[in-house]
């Protein structure tokens, strides 16, 4: 039995002041089990909510009888749509300018939809009471297949919307140039066509969604505790929906057990908890269970795509895509207003194409609402999956090495900033270099030799490549808003007289390490040690307005804001230092932590002395206010464009068709890295998710719309045994427009890994079994069917 050891003090000299491998400040509470997640919070007088959900995918509600539930001694209230109607809360707006039922009144439109909300003294009683609510349903035919949603005989799902005649959720949105694309295809020497599905999957963070709503009837203050990736935006929505004053709503997100986009939407459970608290005047806690999370909260992907790609003289020249997005029963996708298909039109990829034409339309179906989630960067995952699968399909047809085709077709470094055929302006990149680093790390030549040897022995080994460019850090106010709110983030920096600082940010961590990395940005810019910089976030009362954390925007936007605000402080510090040193500001130079007189470094003012001066009664520059703080709302001039080269090696059992990911090499270029340790950690996590999506994660339905993956027994997430020891490399191509040269990386691994793995599986099976396409997930059963010559789409 081991005894414990002293806390290891890290060598002060090893700890970076600024960028570098700094161990995390937030670890202190988590390793001790002292995090404060939503379900850990208990308030005096708190009651518990539970949600009754529809067993049917599509059905009329004939009657709801809550009398037996109300008779339960521990039940305080049962809320139905009728009750919410009187409060004007039966329906709520979505981020996509649609409406969503908070509680179903006329019809249920997906299995798991919210029908009634019970409030009881404790969780167990609330769950019991659900069984005492009697609902009579009249089942209707369900729309489960996106391709059939617009058939003439498909049942109308959104009959609640005036003028809605069919199941079209969002009309066709186009990008690119159809004529130029037709020309490119006409002149091509090779064309490939594929139907490719990116199946529905789910972010499934380990902590489910929930809320405590605490309305104080005397003061009119609504306190909300909620794991939530965009607290300010939610506050604005609640003010609008509940008719409350926005400044009387406070949302506190303390610790969040993972978000991955699942904690972006406003869920009916939240509105019911708030309504319950307003009516009852006590705190109401609602925490969903795992099956509710999988069946009803924001899923990801579900794109049905038809694509064609062409090449001429060994180079990719054109791409044509026609996609159907399945948004579920309500359109609650999150993306900037002008981009109903998100950033899907980045499907032009990393290639110097002549032309591309992209069309996307969205349909309703009798499934849970959502679509934009799970580290997708607003549909970049779908786009990159498609283009990288198509490149491999084209390479297969051309009988060339898939890396070689990419190398021939990459945008060259001198072409940046590069305007793509679908309207993007990529900032910087040296793609071929990153690809080469990946090849070397993987030992690509050796792998191909090994593959040939194994093939001769009847063993199936596959090597899959993907190269991605993604666009993150939404976004410039002239192009982007969500619900009319600018996607700008704020930063408030206050340096105290002691020289220690507090920086308040809009970004909302769910594990990304913001308490450390944002302190490192201030440290880098001002020389204040990270342990002396407190990062405040997660409290709408104490942080500046911003649109939150998703789409990898923390570093590009909030990081930019913190850099800019730190420089504002540094600029003010310069003026104060000039007064202190009796020099002209132009004669001063900066070295991290101090302003000094050029040519006379002993004449210097340390930042902490400048801070003390700023608050003191001593002389300050003429006209300057005291204090040493600044505020910024940062409007990014463009998205940033991280990229990467990934190589996956898989082995497939020839008899059982079981796929093992033997190796995964990931070389990412996310510009300047604030904390390489945290960057690597983000990549590891995203690669594991990619393995899950490629091999085992799917939310599927039967013909009646019953969800077949509503628990972790059937929604399978990789364990440590399915993940190899990831091999990471890096190149660093700074972002020219970002204050720190950083691009952000959180979603890149999820963007780049599924196509690499699927390309590897097909690579293993193409020559021996003639497989030229297979949709995810590549479960043993699906791989085996492909090997028999019968690959099937997921549903």
């Amino acid at each position, binding site marked *: *039995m*081991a*005894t*414990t*050891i002293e*806390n*290891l003090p890290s060598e002060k000299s090893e700890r970076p002041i600024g960028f570098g491998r700094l*161990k*995390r400040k*937030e*670890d202190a509470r*988590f*390793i*001790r*089990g*002292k*995090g*404060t*997640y939503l*379900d*850990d919070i208990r308030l005096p007088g708190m009651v518990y909510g539970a949600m009754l959900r529809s067993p049917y995918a599509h059905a009329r509600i004939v009657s709801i009888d809550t009398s037996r539930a109300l008779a339960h001694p521990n039940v305080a209230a049962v809320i139905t749509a009728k009750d919410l109607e009187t409060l004007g809360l039966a329906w709520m707006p979505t981020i996509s300018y649609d409406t969503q039922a908070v509680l179903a009144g006329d019809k249920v439109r997906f299995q798991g939809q919210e029908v009634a909300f019970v409030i009881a003294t404790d*969780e*167990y009683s609330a769950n019991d009471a659900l069984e005492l609510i009697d609902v009579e349903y009249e089942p209707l035919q369900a729309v489960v297949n996106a391709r059939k949603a617009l058939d003439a005989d498909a049942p109308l799902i959104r009959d609640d919307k005036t003028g809605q005649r069919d199941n079209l959720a969002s009309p066709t949105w186009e990008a690119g140039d159809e004529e130029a694309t037709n020309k490119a295809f006409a002149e091509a020497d090779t064309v490939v066509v594929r139907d490719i599905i990116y199946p529905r999957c789910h*972010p*499934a*963070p*380990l*902590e*489910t969604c929930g809320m405590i709503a605490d309305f104080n009837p005397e003061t009119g203050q609504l306190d909300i505790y909620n794991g939530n990736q965009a607290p300010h935006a939610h506050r604005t929505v609640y003010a609008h929906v509940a008719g409350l004053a926005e400044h009387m709503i406070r949302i506190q997100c303390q*610790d*969040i*057990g*993972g978000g*991955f986009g699942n904690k972006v939407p406003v869920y009916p459970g939240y509105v019911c908890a708030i309504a319950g608290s307003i009516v009852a005047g006590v705190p109401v806690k609602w925490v969903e*269970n*795992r*099956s509710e999370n999988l069946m009803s909260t924001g899923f990801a992907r579900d794109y049905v795509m038809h694509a064609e790609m062409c090449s001429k003289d060994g180079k990719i020249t054109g791409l044509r895509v026609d996609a159907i997005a399945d948004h579920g029963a309500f359109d609650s996708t999150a993306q900037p207003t002008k981009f109903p298909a998100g950033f899907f039109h980045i499907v032009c990829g990393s290639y110097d194409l002549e032309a591309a034409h992209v069309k996307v339309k969205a349909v309703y179906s009798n499934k849970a609402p959502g679509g934009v989630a799970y580290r997708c960067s607003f549909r970049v995952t779908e786009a990159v999956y498609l283009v990288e699968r198509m490149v491999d399909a084209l390479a297969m047809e051309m009988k060339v090495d898939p890396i070689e085709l990419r190398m021939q077709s990459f945008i060259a470094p001198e072409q940046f900033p590069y305007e793509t055929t679908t309207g993007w302006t990529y900032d910087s990149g040296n793609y071929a270099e990153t690809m080469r680093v990946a090849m070397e790390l993987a030992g690509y030549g050796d792998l191909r030799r090994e593959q040939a040897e194994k093939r001769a022995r009847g063993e199936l080994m596959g090597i899959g490549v993907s190269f991605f460019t993604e666009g993150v850090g939404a976004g410039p106010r002239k192009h982007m808003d969500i619900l009319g709110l600018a996607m700008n983030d704020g930063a408030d920096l206050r340096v105290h007289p002691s020289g220690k600082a507090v920086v308040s940010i809009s970004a909302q961590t*769910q*594990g*990304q*390490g913001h308490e450390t990395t944002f302190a490192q940005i201030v440290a880098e810019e001002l020389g204040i040690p990270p342990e002396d910089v407190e990062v405040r976030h997660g409290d709408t009362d104490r942080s500046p307005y911003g649109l939150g954390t998703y789409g990898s925007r923390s570093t590009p936007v909030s990081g930019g804001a913190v850099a800019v605000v730190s420089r504002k402080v540094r600029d003010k510090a310069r003026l104060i230092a000039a007064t202190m040193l009796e020099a002209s500001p132009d004669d001063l130079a900066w070295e991290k932590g101090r302003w000094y007189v050029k040519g006379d470094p002993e004449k210097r003012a340390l930042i902490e002395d400048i801070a003390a001066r700023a608050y003191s009664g001593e002389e300050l520059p003429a006209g300057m206010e005291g204090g040493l703080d600044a505020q910024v709302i940062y409007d990014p001039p463009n998205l940033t464009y991280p990229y990467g080269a990934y190589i996956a090696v898989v082995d497939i059992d020839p008899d059982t068709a079981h796929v093992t990911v033997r190796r995964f090499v990931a070389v990412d270029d996310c510009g300047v890295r604030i904390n390489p340790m*945290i960057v690597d*950690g*983000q*990549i*590891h*996590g*995203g690669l*594991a*998710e990619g393995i899950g999506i490629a091999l085992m994660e799917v939310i599927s339905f039967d013909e009646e719309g019953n969800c077949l993956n509503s*628990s*972790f*027994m059937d929604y399978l*997430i990789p*364990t*440590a*045994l399915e*993940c190899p*020891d*990831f091999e990471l490399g890096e190149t660093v191509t700074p972002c020219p427009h970002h204050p720190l040269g950083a691009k952000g990386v959180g979603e890149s691994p999820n963007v780049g890994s599924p196509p690499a793995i699927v390309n590897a599986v097909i690579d293993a099976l193409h020559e021996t079994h003639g497989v030229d396409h297979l949709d995810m997930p590549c479960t043993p059963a699906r791989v085996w069917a492909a090997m028999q010559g019968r690959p099937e789409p997921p549903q």
Partner: protein
Amino acid sequence: MNVSISINGDQVSREIEPRQLLVHFIRETPELTGTHWGCDTSNCGACVVLMDGKAVKSCTILAAMAEGHEIRTVESLEVDGRLDPVQQGFHEHHALQCGFCTPGMQMTARALLDENPNPTEEEIRIAISGGICRCTGYKNIVAAIRWAAEHEVTATQGV
């Protein structure tokens, strides 16, 4: 019914319904919300605690069944202000991001090292395969546990 359970060396007694799950009993004890839950089907491992030194899923044990056994939760790892090598290893190797799976993973690691002080990478991966982490991809968790194995100090050797 009244149950009395030894948690981290203290007797915790409470009047409960027989159906109360151990994870809830633990979490309702003041200062013991470090043990989490994340699923309905005993898959995710967020609820792992030690029962008589063995890792168990506390969501799949009734509180009543735990009476008469020694339960250890994540809060027991730090002793007199000194972190357990497992905790220190997780910190050294960035083996946590959101922190939600961390208590379960650390307790699993603690039980592993108590039984197998020098596990291979494969043995570590097997040992933690009853838990899900969505954030780390497991690589750093494995490294953290190896670090802890290498930095354990046995009583006979002294600190």
